[in-house]
């Protein structure tokens, strides 16, 4: 079973994941600010991507009064059933990691759904900081020099 692995040590802070996420879930407009994954710089050269961990005993699922958060048995991701959601926002408050939000553009609760089994963030991560895999790649992966990042989707 594949999962989304995050290895902050390899993150180069390029934010390609944010862009990819917002494209993948684009509604009317897209902007990295609306991404479900976010990259936090914790030092000048250290970055931490944060996305939903798809917790086994998830607080969001527990707190949802309308059973609108349902785990997809194929991807193991917790998905939002918008026909059930009443936007009480309790999931956004209860998630201890802050990984579920109200998207004001579409007035909907949004969270990482691993793009249905092929997460765009991992696809476009140039440094294996995000991986969609059975298990994560072990060991250091050489970081490209800052400023010389070649984003995969720009490859001709």
């Amino acid at each position, binding site marked *: 079973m594949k999962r989304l692995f995050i290895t902050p040590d390899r993150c180069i802070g390029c934010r390609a994941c944010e862009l990819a996420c917002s494209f993948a879930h684009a509604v009317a407009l897209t902007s990295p600010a609306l991404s479900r994954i976010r990259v936090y710089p914790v030092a000048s050269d250290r970055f931490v991507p944060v996305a939903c961990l798809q917790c086994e005993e998830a607080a969001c699922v*527990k*707190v949802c009064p309308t059973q609108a958060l349902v785990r997809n048995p194929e991807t193991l991701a917790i998905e939002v059933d918008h026909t059930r959601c009443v936007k009480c926002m309790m999931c956004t*408050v209860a998630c201890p*990691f*802050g990984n579920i939000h109200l998207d004001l553009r579409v007035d909907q609760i949004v969270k990482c759904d691993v793009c249905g089994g092929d997460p765009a963030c991992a696809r476009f991560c140039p440094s294996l900081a995000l991986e969609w895999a059975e298990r994560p790649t072990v060991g250091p992966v050489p970081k490209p020099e800052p400023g010389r990042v070649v984003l995969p989707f720009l490859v001709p």
Partner: protein
Amino acid sequence: MLTFTIDGQTVQAEEGQNLLEVALAHGFDIPTLCYHPSVSAYGACRLCLVEVTQRGRSRITTSCNYPALPGISVVTRNDRIDRLRRLVMELILCRDPGNPQLQAMADRLGVDRTRLRFASRQDGCILCGLCERICRESIGADAISFVGRGHERRLATPFDEPSESCVGCLACAMVCPTQVIEFTQDADTRTIWKRTFTLVKCKECGAVLGTPEELALFQRKTGLDASYFDTCDACRKKQTATAFAAVTWGGQRP
């Protein structure tokens, strides 16, 4: 699993499912104003009429509270169903002919106006009861209820006073199919069903989290620690990043 047909197409359903949810799941288009998958089917609006044939006998019935049964055949549209749905829509339109959501449904059904006299109370409420069911069944607050009967029926808190049971979660307003449950919110307070709540804010950034009653109710229902309910999602996410950094790079300042 049981099998039956919808408009000639064989479909499978779980026992206990109703016809409407099975039909919607299979992509059939059935109009409804009072159905919500999270709460029990109620059958108030009567728009989801279908024709069900069972053991050779046909009848018109609402699909939302008709159980999926093996061997039945369901017809979602024919001239008679369409005509009855249009009449139902005309009746519902009497509640508030100007309501945009009702107008949209009327357009969908090919009803351009109602030939009938309008109802005496035209507040847009079509008495579908979704607010009442979401409040009672999903939220567990049970703050509002139908009052009166017949043409005088309406929804209210007990004695029309601010309800002690209401937690101000706004779920009722969110599910209302005609969007007529009023509430107001400013920086510090939220008011709904005549009750004003003082809002709880994120302990980090001051963003609004909800009402204290709502947060307490959800905490009680889930058994989660109170600390789950004091910070907003944005601040939490930042904290998560910090925690991850600590795990990755150890106690040292990065």
